[in-house]
């Protein structure tokens, strides 16, 4: 694992350029942070532009027409840029009825939420702006803030159609957070961590290691996740908040120009984000179907070759995420829109129970159907053992592991965690079994792989 921008490399580059900085100089850190920020912002902005273009092209193909063909050459590459320029030059209209402050702020709230979530999204092994221990929930949480921009926009516009859009959005997003949260918990507890880099790295190897193939329940839960993700980013057939045939344009009816554009940047940003999250949680993240760079040994070689391997990983990740977005676009241009009560029914009557059943099923798979089988049921996944991904484990796990290895108490590692209650007097005296039972429950792959020893 390495950083996208290595401080030392940066300083060396600066040295070549004639600027001499000590390795820990503040300017270097600020520069690195700036480069990170610009790259991230660039990814979001370019992704939005790319997806606007892709949406038009894909929609065109689906609808038996060509889509944009003229701006910027044969394929209309620059259509999105032309749109942007047009939107920039449009008048920024604000209705007299609107609450001026909230009306102005709302698009930024949406966009900022969508962009902030990228802070915790790794693009390759270690290529993440901020290592956050609970990155999965951080992303979901920040994504959930996007709804606030929509609600404020709807309420502050002073239009009844916008208000309807806001009401629908708030009801929908609050409901869909429940199954979405349940779905992401499944890969999280299989891996025993919420750190996305660790989850991604655990799936190193062939495509059979992808968590979506872990067991039937993870396979099912991926589809539930994808459905809920589409709903939570407000894409058709769940785009109730902007339903153009019912609510004119819903929450952004009164917006024009750049402010309107921000809503769309946010929408496409979140689409890529949820697809990226799905990629890491279910589809091996930055690991391709064939571990070419692992075979070559580049990914642990260090230096330029490792950087190349990680770059390829980032490309891998982006390709998978873009495929996810393309599926969303495909769905949008195929299906009619659901009605608000049907959207809620889908969430409460189908998605939530399905996610719960999948959660229980995957739990059962890991524990040998709650103790009926001898151990975890068979799975094509050969997840990387805890030891090798130690860098991102909490230190207490490592310590516990080392201690357990030293005492050779691997036999007890598979003991279910529920029985390891610390209050039991007979357990309170002996620390080691309790520790290993704790690790066994947390890093369940650990115990399955014959564990710590």
């Amino acid at each position, binding site marked *: 694992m390495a950083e996208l921008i290595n401080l030392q490399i940066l300083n060396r580059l600066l040295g070549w350029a004639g600027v001499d900085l000590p390795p820990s100089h503040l300017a270097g850190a600020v520069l690195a942070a700036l480069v990170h920020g610009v790259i991230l912002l660039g990814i979001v902005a370019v992704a939005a532009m790319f997806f606007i273009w892709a949406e038009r092209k894909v929609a065109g193909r689906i609808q038996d027409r060509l889509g944009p063909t003229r701006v910027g050459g044969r394929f209309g590459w620059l259509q999105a840029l032309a749109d942007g320029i047009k939107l920039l030059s449009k008048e920024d209209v604000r209705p007299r009825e609107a609450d001026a402050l909230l009306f102005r702020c709302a698009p930024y709230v949406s966009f900022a939420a969508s962009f902030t979530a990228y802070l915790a999204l790794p693009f390759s092994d270690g290529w993440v702006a901020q290592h956050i221990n609970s990155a999965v929930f951080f992303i979901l949480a920040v994504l959930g803030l996007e709804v606030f921009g929509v609600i404020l926009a709807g309420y502050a516009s002073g239009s009844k159609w916008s208000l309807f859009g806001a009401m629908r959005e708030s009801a929908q997003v609050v409901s869909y957070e429940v199954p979405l949260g349940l779905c992401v918990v499944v890969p999280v507890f299989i891996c025993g961590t919420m750190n996305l880099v660790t989850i991604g790295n655990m799936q190193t190897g062939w495509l059979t290691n992808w968590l979506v193939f872990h067991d039937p329940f993870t396979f099912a839960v991926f589809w539930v996740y994808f459905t809920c993700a589409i709903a939570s980013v407000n894409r058709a057939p769940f785009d*109730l908040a902007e339903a153009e*045939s019912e609510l004119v344009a819903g929450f952004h009816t009164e917006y024009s120009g750049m402010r309107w554009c921000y809503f769309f940047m946010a929408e496409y940003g979140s689409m890529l984000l949820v697809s990226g999250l799905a990629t890491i949680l279910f589809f091996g993240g930055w690991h391709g179907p064939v571990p070419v760079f692992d075979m070559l040994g580049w990914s642990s070689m260090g230096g330029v070759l490792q950087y190349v391997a990680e770059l390829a990983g980032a490309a891998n990740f982006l390709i998978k995420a873009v495929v996810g977005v393309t599926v969303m676009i495909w769905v949008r241009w195929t299906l009619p829109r659901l009605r608000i009560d049907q959207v809620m029914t889908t969430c409460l009557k189908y998605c939530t129970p399905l996610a719960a059943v999948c959660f229980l099923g995957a739990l059962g798979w890991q524990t040998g159907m709650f103790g009926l089988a001898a151990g975890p049921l068979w799975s094509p996944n050969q997840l990387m053992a805890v030891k090798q991904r130690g860098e991102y484990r909490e230190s207490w796990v490592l310590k516990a592991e080392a201690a357990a290895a030293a005492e050779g108490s691997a036999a007890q590692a598979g003991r279910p965690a529920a029985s390891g209650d610390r209050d039991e007097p007979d357990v309170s005296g002996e620390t080691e079994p309790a520790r290993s039972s704790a690790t066994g429950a947390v890093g369940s792959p650990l115990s399955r792989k014959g564990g710590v020893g």
Partner: protein
Amino acid sequence: MASHLGDPRVVEFDVRTDEMLINMGPQHPSTHGVLRLALRTDGEIVSEATPHIGYLHRCAEKIGENLSHRQYIPYTDRMDYLAAMNMNLGWALVVEKLLKHEVPERGRHLRVLMAELNRIASHLVAMGTYGLDLGSFTPFLYAFRERERILDLFEEVCGARLTYSYITPGGATGDLTEGWLEKCEAFLDQLAPVIEEYHTLLTSNAVFIRRTAGIGVLSAEMAIDYGTSGPVLRGSGVDYDLRRDGDPWYTGLYRDYKYEVIVQKDGHYPKDRDYPPVPAEAVLGDSWHRFYVRMLEVVQSVELVRQAMERYRAAKGDCGAPLKLTQRLPKGEAYLETEAPRGQMGFFLVADGNAIPWRVRVRSSSFCNLSITHEVCRGCLIADVPAVIGSLDIVMGEIDR
């Protein structure tokens, strides 16, 4: 049962919300033109929907009293602009009825050919825009792709793509061009498999069924009471089609054609075996049935066009020349209703012996079909309002005239 949520007069929610008055239209994307619906809603539930019309009023009837019968043809084009051929036909027939003027055999088949072809085009637009109303954009463009080819055919015979003014009192402005029939044949061959696609995209689509089945149910009695007609009436299970049951002057046009009226009998539509089955959720008279009737009528019209082409080829002679502008109309009155794509389109003509009619009145099908809005929209959700209005397939040009 007005909707699954029940009638607002019966259902009471603990959370009291203020009643809201919303104007849907006249600049709303899914009111099909400049219709304004004043919705009184409780949250998302519509308690009252009142259509306000007249935004497209152009005094079409009054203009008819100042122009010669043949000069009036372009104005009929602009009533139901999606089915201008059928409008032309209606006016031409009523003038001919007053004059007791029979068109030659070939002209008769030409008229059936054009009317049915335009019915296909009109139903395609209805289908596409209905998809649009439900948030599905793609069928709209598919429908327009096929409609373009019909418009190409029309353009070839009359030079216009929307307002044809082709069928005139006395006959038509011209005969078919060389090779036109072959092109039409090719189009029909290509249309048949495409309709299957539309059924996949919409009719049998699970989301589509959930959005339309059981929504906007119009009972047969109510449909008759409100004077609805066309697919709206037949969608409620009333077996009534003016091509079979209308004025002899009009039914004569179809006298030797073979077709079945598209209406559900004993739980089955004619020839519905080839098409998606009626879903279990659908109630006779709901939006889904209205849509389905239209889809089946496209197939019916394809067959009628084929028959008409065959008979047109066989018929000898010309297809009739337009009457002279100055052709005086005999003193008296005539009323004739024709089966336009949207229902029965009636023209009433009173003449005082001049070429210029003394009185012209129009009975519009969409107008009566729209009048059921407040009955079927009560108690449904806001999202259902476009779903119901779309299934009525109204054209404001015809309502406001």
